[in-house]
């Protein structure tokens, strides 16, 4: 019974981003031809955010992302590829590669800024790399509304001993580094993108992250964002990230602010 309830709660949490969909649908005008394009990067376009990644349109259906400043210490890249579009539906895959070793070694230090310990009984962070692959099904039921469902699997290669005392027990970070301690991770998610007007949009996502077999196995993240395209090139985003998960110290919620200033050219 408890397990069924847990699954029910997980399903509700997963579908939380779609909470407002019914209202949206009822409010839509029937205006075929319009499509949600708020956050798309077309071929040759660049988009960069203060905190968000640099995005480049390799083609109209293919986008490359990276965090350029962090590339020096945590080389990372993500490819977003929309494979097939049929009517108001599309299939997209996402593939990301991260090499966190230099950053983790950099923050293993004594004194202020020491996020990880420089402890003589803990071996240096080994070389390690993670690969995450995700598939998304998109549907645009109305011209200004898009929603998706996603599923993904991540793998990690760790080339040496990774001490379990090197976890960073913080939201967002812990579940993403968890794959290195567990070897693999699974994710399912859903979300919606709602274009309220040419300038305004709302976005919501939810994701369940599992690290099967790991002592801290379950995480849930949900974000809500409002975006304002205040000029041809500039946009502002503000929102929140709500997380819940099992950490080495126990279960905890976190509510974090989200903010970004984006520019495209």
């Amino acid at each position, binding site marked *: 019974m408890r397990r069924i309830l847990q699954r029910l709660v997980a399903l509700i949490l997963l579908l*939380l981003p779609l*909470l*407002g*969909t019914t*209202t*949206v649908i009822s*409010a839509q005008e029937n205006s075929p031809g319009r499509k949600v394009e708020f956050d798309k990067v077309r071929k040759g376009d660049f988009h960069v955010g203060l905190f968000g990644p640099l995005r480049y349109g390799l083609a109209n259906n293919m986008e490359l992302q990276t965090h350029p400043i962090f590339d020096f210490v945590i080389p990372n890249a993500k490819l977003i590829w929309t494979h097939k579009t049929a009517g108001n539906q599309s299939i997209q895959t996402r593939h990301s590669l991260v090499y966190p070793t230099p950053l983790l070694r950099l923050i*293993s*230090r*004594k*004194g*202020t*800024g*020491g*996020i*990880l*310990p*420089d*402890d*003589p*009984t*803990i071996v240096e962070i080994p070389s390690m790399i993670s690969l995450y692959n995700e598939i998304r099904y998109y549907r645009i039921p109305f011209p200004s509304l898009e929603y998706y469902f996603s599923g993904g699997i991540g793998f990690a290669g760790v080339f040496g001993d990774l001490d379990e*005392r090197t976890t*960073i*027990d*913080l939201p967002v970070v812990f579940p993403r580094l968890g794959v290195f301690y567990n070897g693999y991770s699974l994710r399912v998610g859903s979300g919606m993108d709602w274009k*309220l007007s040419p300038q305004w949009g*709302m976005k*919501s996502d939810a994701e369940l992250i599992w690290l099967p077999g790991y002592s801290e196995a379950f995480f849930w993240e949900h974000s*809500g964002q409002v975006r304002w395209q205040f000029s041809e090139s500039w946009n502002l985003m503000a929102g*929140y990230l*709500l997380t*819940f998960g099992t950490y*080495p*110290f*126990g279960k*905890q*919620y*976190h*509510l974090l602010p989200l903010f970004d200033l984006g520019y495209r050219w």
Partner: protein
Amino acid sequence: MKQAIYSWAIVVIVIGAMGCEPLVTKFPENSDAIKYSAQSHESPPAVGNSLLIMTWNIRFGAARIPWFGDSCGERVILTKAEVQEALSAIADKINEVQPDILLVQEVDVESNRTGYINQVQWLLDHTYFNYAAYGSMWKSQFVPSDGLGRINTGQAVFSRWELSDTERIQLALRGDQDALTTYFYLRRNILKTKVMVPEIDNLYVLNIHASAFSTDDTKQQHVTEFKEVFDALDSGGALVIGGGDFNLLPPGSDSTNYCDEDRCQDDDPDFCPEGSDYTPEMTWMEPIYNAYSPAVSLSDYLASNSRYFTHSTSGDVFWNRKLDYLFTNGTWSAGTDSTYQETMQLADHAPVSARLAVQP
């Protein structure tokens, strides 16, 4: 659209209110202490004519491992096995001495440095104590320094009998640090609790861990605040036990400067670590000595300082100063005090005990 926004807002507010904690917990002046109960309870023995009281700074179950913060060491995050081994040795000593009430300082309940072992619950479940109360002196979701990460450490009172009226009383913050350091730093306190011994009315315990490394008058303020709480209970007719790690020497101690003993190998020869020179602080314990009865009388201590030493920073150096005390407004049974100097490898403080005379 409004309905969607309202729905999201309600979800966020409800869940946020349920579970969100600040990065660093700043405690109010007075707050409830956290109560614990052992998984299985043992019936307390009938009270005779005394209760055995003990105080012990257990160094968060780090035994004598050279930890970076207090012993010139380089260790930061201990393994669970290391902590459990140290706690087992501490529990063995407690079970051997069999105090009725135990005041503990530096006990971790949710700290990355000690494998997130809840040491209050662990000690309850590995000794004969039935109840405990805990007051945190350092609670932060993440300390971004030295790889410490999450920490929650403080004082606890363990008892065979139920505890009530438990309270955490905030002490003055250090006045010799910048604002950012102060924000992330320790918040010292007095843990106050009433012990419900059936035959004794109005028995209170005060447990303090005063500032260790302050170089201004913070420690003196802590002693003054401790005495004020003690005085208030005393004037209300309570029988009070007050003790803990005061980080101060008894007045009249032979040695008052430990710069040489505490200096690390790589330090400059003229360098004196913070908190190692007690010379300007030698009168700060006098008000308590003058007002209440110490478990180790000042005359006994002055006759032989070293016999009562309770602390040394390194496991390689035998106890070289007394920092740990027990006081009462009642009476200690004559000749019952003990300083357990054989515990050199269990922690960086030795426990001190004495029998409190009671008339059930």
